[in-house]
């Protein structure tokens, strides 16, 4: 039986490095873009909202004077 040509099976050093570089680029480029995007938009303090998104009612003074039903 004839043994396979070892040069076809084993990757050359150059080929290996090229593949690794390509793989890194595929992962790193979008990641760097994502990191840069989020770096710019880190926020601790939010803007004070002006409009409440739910139903708004005037404060019920009668219920304010009574202890709340909630814990705490």
């Amino acid at each position, binding site marked *: 039986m004839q043994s396979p040509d070892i040069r076809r099976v084993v990757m050359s050093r150059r080929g290996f490095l090229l593949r690794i570089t390509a793989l890194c680029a595929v992962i790193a480029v979008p990641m760097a873009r994502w990191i840069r*995007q989020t770096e710019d*938009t880190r*926020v*601790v*303090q939010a803007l004070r909202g002006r409009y409440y998104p*739910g*139903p708004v009612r005037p404060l019920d003074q009668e219920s304010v004077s*009574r*202890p709340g039903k909630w814990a*705490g």
Partner: protein
Amino acid sequence: MIIRCDLCPKRCMIEPGQSGECRIRVNLDGRLVAVTYGHPCTVHVDPIEKKPFFHFLPGTTSLSLATVGCNLHCKNCQNWEISQQNPEEVPASPLSPAEIPKLAAAHGCRSVSYTYTDPVVYYEYTADSSLCVREAGLKNALVTAGYINREPWTELCRKVDAVRIDLKALTDKFYQDICGATLQPVLDSLITTRSLGVHIEVINLLIPTLNDSDREIRALCQWIVQNLGREIPLHFSRFFPNYQMKNLPPTPASALIRAREIARSAGLYYVYLGNILVPDGENTFCPECGDLLIERRAFEVLKNTIENGRCPRCNRQIYGVWL
């Protein structure tokens, strides 16, 4: 544009038009907006003992408010109808920070408590209101799980007078499984609060089989003694089946009494039992001479002999903010 909220350790990445996990910090056109600002969903005059604060202006009332939303999702939450809801579903009332001290004074309150849900998530409203309240000569109290990043927490602590932190357990597993959070940031908040000299009281809800073993209770008490000090008041509270945790029974009185023994033997001076009536469960004794200083029953102060923050019998200073 995606925004990352750095207020709490969740560090939510928020897409445009979406909110963070707490439901009330929303990415509107690339800007983070606190949508419940100036709109509490509940406002009440409570005894300060209900928070519970036992060493902070005892016998007074506190204007207590909350907006919807929370950054934790505890399976046993007693206030889930406001903490785990979207603002779109819960009615709220306009109340600006400047109006809060006026409302508090009109009702004879000595303080304002940011409570019921978690003031961490309505951070800007709490911070602005605290400044107005302080300017008016009243005090500010936070009732929180303390799940917040160090920098904003430090800033908030400088504006308030008292913090009641919920230390739910001393294991990360409990925080992850039951609350969707982690332990370390809570411990960091406790240490930061103490280092800033803000009055602290700690509460621990004892839930059968989840955090009530002697070993866990002892570890929790020892942590408080070593990191905060023996004088920090610790409240053990009784669990009742609720929300997504209806499969467990209420905490037996014997478990609470045993927890108090463990806490006292760990060296804590002021240990209280809440949500249950047991002998001396809510009373304050002098750690030096053993005199009964404050007698309470169900949020009511029946007797208070503390004078200028000291025991009238042996003159020992008692930890707290007194009238």
